[in-house]
C-alpha cells in the first residue's frame, strides 16, 4: 500500500519488522529484497508520490517539484550545486539510468583499506547480475544515441581515446530526451516503477511526504523512527507519525542519512566525509543544428582518464575522472553559462548547436556535512589534486569536441574561455575552477556514514549495522567508503542488496 502523507491529517502509528528511511537506489533495492522474503516492511520518504502522468518534463516546474530544496541547494559557499531528488523512488526518479558496476580496483581498495572483506567481484557479481536483470540494464543501443553522443564518440575515435556505450536502466525507451525530470512514459526502470510497487503489492506500506525527524533509541538500541507528515504544497507539517521496528535502515541518501543521524546521535564519524564526484561542463558549438534534445543524455561515456596518472615520484600527471555526455533544457543551460546581457543571449541563440560533456571527478578530498538550524549543510571545496583533475578534464573534453569537428568549445567560466585549437588550451588554468568561477555541481553523493571495520573511521560495520547503535543499518550512498569513480547508482543497489541479504540471514 502506498500512503500519501500529504493527504493525511492527524497522527499515524505503524509497526513493522523493518523500517526503511528512503526509497531510492539503496532503500528500494533493500526493501524489495526483504519483502520478497516475507519481512514486513515500512518505507518512508520525505518526497511526494508521483506517477508517469505527473512527469510533464517541464524544467521550470520540475526543478521545484522533484528536487531537494527545489533545486536550489548548494555548498555553503554557493560554489557547487548539490543535486538530489525528493520523491518516492529517490534519486532514481531523476537519474539518467547510467548503471556501471564498481570497477574491480575500487572494490579492492575498499576491501583492503576499509576492512570490507566482501567487496569482491565474487561476492557482488550475483547482486549486480540480479539487479541488471530486474531493471533491464543493457548497453545503450544506437536508437538511444543523439548527435551529441555520436559526436563525442567520433571525437574519441579520432583521438584514439577509450570510450564506450553506457549500460543503461530502461526498457523499450522511446528516447524522448528528458529522463532527468522523471520518466513520463514508464520506460526508465527507476525504483518508482520496479521495487516500490512490488513492496506495496506484497503488503509493505510506503509512506510519501513523511519526513523522519528522529531515530527512536531505547537502552542504546534502535526501536523505530518518528517524524512529520508534510503538506506537499507548502512543506509544512500537518501530522506526526511513529513507526516501531527493531531494524531501522537508513537509505535517505548521503545528505538525508547524515542529517537524520546528526539530529539523532552524536556519532563522530557521521558527515565527516562527503564525496560528490564534482561535475564541470564544456559546451561545443558545432556551427549547425544537432540533435541535442533527443536520445538519452548519456549513451556514451569516456573512460580513458578514469585512473589518475602519476610520475614515479608521485607527481600528478593527469586523469582521475570519466566524462559523460550531457544535455539540458534551455533553462538549466542558461543558468550554467557565465556570460551576461547580450553575450549571454547570443550564446543561448546557439542552444541547438551545442554539444556538451560533463565530468565525474574521482576526488581525493571530500567535503563534509553538518547541521545548520537543524538541516543539512554542505561544506565542499574542489582543491589540491582535484582542481588539477578538473583542469585536465576541461582540456581533454575540449580536445574531444575539436576532434569531432566543433567550431569552438566554451569553458563556461567567468573568463569566457573559448578553445578553437590546441593552442588555446593553455588558457584553461586553475582560474577556471576556482569557487564560483564557473557552474559546478555534485550529484553522486556518498560516504557520509561509511561502512568499515574500524569504528574510529566508519559509522557501520562491514555488515552495514552501526558500530554504536545496534538496530540501525545504513544502505545507501552514505554507506560507500568513498567515490566509486563512475556513476554510483548500480553499486549502491548492489551494496544494499548485499546488506539486505545479511539482515535476512540474521533474522532467519
Amino acid at each position, binding site marked *: *500500500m*502506498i*500512503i*500519501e502523507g500529504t*493527504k493525511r491529517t492527524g497522527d499515524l502509528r505503524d509497526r513493522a519488522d523493518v523500517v526503511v528511511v528512503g526509497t531510492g537506489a539503496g532503500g528500494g533495492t533493500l526493501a524489495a529484497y526483504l519483502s520478497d522474503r516475507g519481512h514486513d516492511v515500512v518505507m518512508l520518504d520525505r518526497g511526494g*508520490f508521483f*506517477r*508517469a502522468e505527473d512527469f*510533464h*518534463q*517541464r*524544467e*521550470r516546474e520540475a526543478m*521545484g517539484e522533484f528536487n531537494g*530544496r*527545489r533545486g*536550489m*541547494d*548548494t555548498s*555553503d*559557499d*554557493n*560554489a557547487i550545486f548539490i543535486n538530489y531528488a525528493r520523491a518516492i523512488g529517490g534519486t532514481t526518479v531523476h537519474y539518467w539510468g547510467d548503471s556501471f558496476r564498481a570497477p574491480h580496483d575500487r572494490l579492492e581498495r575498499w576491501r583492503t583499506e576499509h576492512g570490507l572483506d566482501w567487496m569482491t567481484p565474487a561476492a557482488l557479481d550475483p547482486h549486480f547480475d540480479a539487479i541488471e536483470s530486474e531493471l533491464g540494464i543493457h548497453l545503450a543501443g544506437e536508437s538511444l544515441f543523439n548527435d551529441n553522443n555520436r559526436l563525442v564518440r567520433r571525437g574519441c575515435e579520432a583521438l584514439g581515446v577509450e570510450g564506450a556505450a553506457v549500460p543503461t536502466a530502461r526498457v*523499450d525507451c522511446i528516447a*524522448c530526451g*528528458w529522463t532527468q525530470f522523471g520518466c*513520463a*512514459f*514508464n*520506460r526508465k526502470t527507476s525504483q518508482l*516503477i520496479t521495487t516500490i*510497487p512490488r513492496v*506495496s*503489492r506484497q503488503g509493505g506500506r510506503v509512506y510519501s511526504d513523511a519526513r523522519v525527524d528522529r531515530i527512536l533509541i531505547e537502552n542504546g538500541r534502535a526501536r523505530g523512527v518518528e517524524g512529520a507528515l508534510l503538506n506537499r504544497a*507548502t*512543506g509544512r507539517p500537518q501530522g506526526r507519525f511513529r513507526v516501531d521496528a527493531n531494524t531501522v535502515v537508513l537509505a535517505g541518501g548521503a545528505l538525508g542519512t547524515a542529517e537524520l543521524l546528526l539530529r539523532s546521535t552524536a556519532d563522530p564519524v557521521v558527515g565527516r566525509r562527503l564525496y560528490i564526484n564534482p561535475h564541470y561542463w564544456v559546451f561545443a558549438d558545432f556551427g549547425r543544428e544537432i540533435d541535442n*534534445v533527443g536520445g538519452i543524455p548519456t549513451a556514451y561515456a569516456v573512460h580513458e582518464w578514469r585512473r589518475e596518472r602519476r610520475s614515479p615520484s608521485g607527481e600528478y600527471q593527469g586523469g582521475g575522472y570519466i566524462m559523460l555526455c550531457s544535455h539540458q533544457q*534551455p*533553462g*538549466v*543551460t*542558461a*543558468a550554467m553559462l*557565465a556570460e*551576461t*546581457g*547580450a553575450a*549571454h*543571449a547570443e550564446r*543561448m541563440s546557439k*542552444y*541547438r548547436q551545442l554539444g556538451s560533456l560533463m565530468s565525474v571527478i574521482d576526488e581525493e578530498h571530500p567535503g563534509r556535512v553538518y547541521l*545548520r*538550524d537543524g*538541516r543539512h*549543510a554542505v561544506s565542499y571545496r574542489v582543491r589540491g589534486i582535484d582542481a588539477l583533475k578538473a583542469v585536465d578534464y576541461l582540456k581533454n573534453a575540449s580536445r574531444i569536441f575539436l576532434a569531432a569537428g566543433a567550431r569552438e568549445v566554451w569553458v563556461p567560466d567567468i573568463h569566457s574561455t573559448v578553445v578553437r585549437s590546441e593552442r588555446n588550451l593553455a588558457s584553461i588554468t586553475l582560474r577556471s575552477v576556482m*569557487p*564560483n*568561477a564557473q*557552474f559546478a555541481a555534485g550529484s553522486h553523493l556518498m560516504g557520509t556514514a561509511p561502512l568499515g571495520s574500524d569504528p574510529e573511521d566508519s559509522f557501520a560495520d562491514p555488515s552495514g549495522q552501526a558500530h554504536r547503535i545496534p538496530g540501525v543499518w545504513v544502505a545507501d550512498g552514505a554507506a560507500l567508503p568513498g567515490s566509486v569513480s563512475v556513476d554510483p547508482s548500480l553499486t549502491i543497489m548492489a551494496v544494499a542488496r548485499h546488506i539486505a541479504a545479511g539482515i535476512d540471514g540474521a533474522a532467519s
Partner: protein
Amino acid sequence: MSSIDSTTTPSSADGSVPGGARLPPGIDRRGFLRSTAGGGVAIGLAALLPGCGREASAGAAAAGELRSLTGKEFEVARAAAEALLVGVPIDPSAIATRLDYELWAVGGAIEEDVRTVLQLLEHLTPLGGRLRRFTELNPTERLAYLETWRNSRFNLRRASFNAIKSFVYFFAYADPAMWAATGFPGTWPGRIPVGIPPIDFGEVV
C-alpha cells in the same frame, strides 16, 4: 519579517560584527554569506547600511501579495533581471515574482541569503564607484555593476552574483515563451502521443 528589519530588535542576536552592531536572528540560517570569507562583514554591512532596514519595512508594507521579499527587494530583483536579460522578451517583474515564490517555498538559509544579496546589491554601489543605488542606475550601468561582482577576486561577490544570475537565467529560459528563440522543440507529453505501460502500485490512499 526580514532579517534586516530585526536588527531593531536584537534580543536573540548571536554575536557582534565590526562596529559593534548585533547580528540579526536570521544569521543562524545563513548559508554562503556566512560561510564565505568576508561574508560576516557583508552581513554586518547589510545590517549597518543606513536606511536598509527602514526601506525593507516600508517595502514590506507596500508589497501586498509578496510572500518572501519586501517591496524593495522585489524591485532590486526586477532591476537585476532587467539588466541581465538583454534582448530577452521576458517580463523582469515575472522573474522577480517567481523569485519571491521560490524563496518562500524553500525558506531557510537560501531565502535568507538571497534576500541579503538583494539588499547588498542595492546598497554597495559606492564600493564600485557609483553614487546612486542599484535600482537608480540605468540597465546598462546595472549590468556593468553586476559584472564587477561576477569578475571579483572575492569569492563572496562571485557567489552573490551567481545566486542572482543563475536564478534569473534559469527562469527566463525555462519559460516556454523562450523556446522558439532557442529552437527548443518542447517536451513530449501532450505533444507527441506515446503509450504509457501501466504500473500496478497496489492500493494507493
